């Protein structure tokens, strides 16, 4: 493998890995903020418990997003210095603004939220979480503005061979970003929805399995109590409410991703026709949407691909909104791209060994074709499962089957898969360009960059392979650690995030023993010592 291949693998691994943590952070953050608002408004104990429990899992995951995000920001300069030089004038700004306007807000106010449970007034404390969560939404906005400029460069003119920003408004309101941002946010909420659904299902199942909750004569759930810390009647409410919130969030977010995804698709047919043709493995011009195509998708040779099942008209509907317009296939696009951008890479020293090589304009079709379908498939499965879950649990009970419970828990992975597949599709589909050219009039002409020219010329393949191996190994180890902690705290239930529940219960019992039910309430007052920090590492 040469330096370019290694650098691309590294970027892909780092980004997909980072984007396992990010959607859970954004989605779960929004959900926890809403739940804490409900607690603030109603004072109901189950909302407090939900805030603490889901907040705990949120934090275990949040820190991994922070840690891997630093790599994201550094690797442009480290591995892609030529790219950084080329796009710096326009691409650096959203990154800097992300740090200045979003990361500071996120990290500072989250610190206040974690440690400020007792230092801050309830309203201020809630506001801190909202500010932090809105900060994470802004960070998504800024990074997608940056990414959208790579998909659809706008607001620049070429000066001395480099794009120079002339219209910041155009860059920050790029129509590509305007649909990609809500698409990504809905994708993040889908992750949170399945996360709530799966874990809440487990606890409802566990309660039933342990004989705490029983079925009444009307077939509805009868919540019970057990001699286990945290397993009281309020605990039942925690899980059934979480399950329902999760299922509703999952369904709404799927509808959101579908609508914004459709808008994105239509833009993409204009802005990156080759990507969409490759997503369809559509070799010839036509109107049909492929349900199943076979043949050697990786051959980049369209003659090997046979569409087995095709629905006529659907492709045109996805692209243009009617059923008749012919959509250009790979073959005719290929000729257009060759005519516009040349057949071979320029003989420029920046291309290194790759100078003069033939350009492959067709992305790896196995990836685009299946990436596109996995994104939609996983997303759809998660939404259907959520709908089914709402129906099955309408009487407040989950089935006793261990296997259905396991399915609900593993269902948490589906939206993660959809998110990853979507990003892999859109980034791989942009190849061979790192900055895609604009075939339409909405963008700027002549602004594009081949990925082959973007890698750092001064960095050796040895350095890149070192970092790839080091980072990938660390990612693997930390993923295991994070998942184990998440599993442990998720299984632990509310009491794992609120140890005071067990303490309160313990002292209450003791008091009852001592003076027979006297002095209830205010059990186990922690005393003055908690005034410094509400929570301690």
């Amino acid at each position, binding site marked *: 493998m040469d330096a370019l291949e290694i650098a691309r693998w590294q970027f892909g691994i780092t980004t997909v890995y980072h984007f396992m943590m990010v959607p859970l952070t954004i989605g779960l953050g929004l959900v926890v903020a809403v739940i804490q608002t409900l607690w603030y408004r109603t004072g109901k104990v189950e909302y407090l418990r939900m805030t603490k429990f889901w907040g705990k899992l949120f934090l275990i995951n949040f820190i991994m997003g922070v*840690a891997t995000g630093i*790599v994201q920001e550094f690797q442009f300069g480290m591995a892609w210095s030529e790219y950084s030089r080329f796009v710096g004038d326009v691409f650096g700004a959203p990154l800097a603004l992300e740090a200045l306007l979003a990361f500071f807000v996120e*990290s*500072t106010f989250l610190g206040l939220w974690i440690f400020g449970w007792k230092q801050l007034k309830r309203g201020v404390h809630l506001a801190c979480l909202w500010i932090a969560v809105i900060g994470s939404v802004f960070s998504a906005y800024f990074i997608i503005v940056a990414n959208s400029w790579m998909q659809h460069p706008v607001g620049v003119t070429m000066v001395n061979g480099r794009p120079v920003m002339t219209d910041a408004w155009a860059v920050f309101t790029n129509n590509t970003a305007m649909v990609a941002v809500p698409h990504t946010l809905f994708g993040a909420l889908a992750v949170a929805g399945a996360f709530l659904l799966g874990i809440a299902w487990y606890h409802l199942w566990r309660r039933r399995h342990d004989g705490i909750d029983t079925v009444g004569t009307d077939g509805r759930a009868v919540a019970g109590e057990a001699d286990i810390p945290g397993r009281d009647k309020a605990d039942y409410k925690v899980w059934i409410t979480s399950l329902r919130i999760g299922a509703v969030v999952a369904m709404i977010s799927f509808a959101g991703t579908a609508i914004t995804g459709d808008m994105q698709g239509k833009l993409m047919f204009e802005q990156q026709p080759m990507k969409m043709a490759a997503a369809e493995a559509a070799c010839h011009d036509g109107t049909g949407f492929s349900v199943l195509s076979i043949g050697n998708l990786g051959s980049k040779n369209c003659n090997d691909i046979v569409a087995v099942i095709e629905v006529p008209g659907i492709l045109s509907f996805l692209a243009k909104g009617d059923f008749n317009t012919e959509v250009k296939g790979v073959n005719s696009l290929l000729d257009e791209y060759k005519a516009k951008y040349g057949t071979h890479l320029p003989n420029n020293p920046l291309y290194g060994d790759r100078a003069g090589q033939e350009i492959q304009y067709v992305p790896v079709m196995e990836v685009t074709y299946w990436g596109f379908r996995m994104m939609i498939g996983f997303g759809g499965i998660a939404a259907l499962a959520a709908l089914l879950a709402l129906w099955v649990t309408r009487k407040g009970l989950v089935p006793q089957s261990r296997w259905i419970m396991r399915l609900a828990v593993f269902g948490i992975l589906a939206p993660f898969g959809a998110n990853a597949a979507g990003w892999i599709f859109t980034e791989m589909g942009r190849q061979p360009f790192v900055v895609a050219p604009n075939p339409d009039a909405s963008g700027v002409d002549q602004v594009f960059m081949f990925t082959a020219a973007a890698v750092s010329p001064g960095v050796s393949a040895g350095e890149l392979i*070192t970092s790839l191996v080091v980072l990938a190994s660390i990612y693997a180890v930390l993923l295991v650690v994070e998942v184990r902690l998440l599993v442990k705290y998720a*299984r*632990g239930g509310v009491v794992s995030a609120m140890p005071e529940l067990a303490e309160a219960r313990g002292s209450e019992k003791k008091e009852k023993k001592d003076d027979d039910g006297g002095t209830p309430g205010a059990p186990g007052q922690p005393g003055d010592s908690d005034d410094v*920090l509400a929570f301690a590492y």
Partner: protein
Amino acid sequence: MELLPTVWFVAIAVLWTGYLFLEGFDLGVGMLMKLFARNNTDRRVLLNTVGPVWDGNEVWLLTAAGATFAAFPMWYASLFSALYLPLLIVLVALIFRAVAFEYRGKVDTARWRTVWDWAIALGSFTAAFGIGAALALTTTGLPIDSNGDRQGGPFAWFSGYALLGGFAVVAFALVHALAFLALKTDGDVRHRARRWFVRLAPLALLPLLAWMVALQLLSGKPLTWILVILGVLAGAAAWVLARKGAEGKAFGALGAFLVCATASIFCAAFPVVIPSTVNPAFNLTISNASSSAYTLGLMSIVAAVGLPLVIAYQAWTYWVFRRRVSAAHIPAAHGFLPAIAAKVLVGHAAPGGPAAKHAPQDAGE
């Protein structure tokens, strides 16, 4: 001299100063987890002094890097690619350190804590050293060619200045953290921190002073020498004040020392952002490395609003958590409480049934 690139050179110097001042003490506290803390309670006192703020402090690094990318893309690209392996090590250190802060208390066993204590201590040391080395190299020179790319192999960047800068930031962070702990803790930790500071400061500030002087000899101006002298005075004042027990003032004086240090270094380097050790004609300067006036203008407006806001709400955070932390404040570590108790399972499920079979596994976690 162009106005906007100069403004952004100053802005980036300010961001690095903010980073070294704020994360300086939490990096130092991280190292002291192994050097200074005597038991688990000490370590938890140390951790909780920086608990609410360390992540916000680290964003100064991200902002410094992001601002460099936006304002001086050539500087960002050349520096980060030339220092590929050292920055990889810094990244690894920062990853482990961040995760360790959050995960250390999540499992209540001595072995688990020891692993993450080492991650915090080594991660803090390595990050401080690497960032110090990178800053020293960008002010003293890298072997870059006319395109700004590193010539020579993966280690061609190495020079004695890398070691000097590394030790300078590590040693500064250590004493900065001691001054911070003296100010932020109470009881035994507070008094020991002050004693350690008085003993170590005269030695620990020397590497940073040496870097300051070295840069004056390389590219200093009369004005920047004044900053060096002011820095020495501030450092001496910090030591005297700490001896007298004026912890707040000592911490402030040490901050003034750092400001003088970065100011003298960046002013002496100005207007060069990376001197080329291959050929001075390849030097990257604020003129040939900067973004367009339009981009810099836009960034200036946003930063003029955003940065004071950041300083304001971060200052508020320190105000909210202004009280000293001491061993008495540290609650007992919570053993993990599973939501399934073994005895209850036995009570409710038939012996040998599925629940009983799973009970030991569930309860054992």
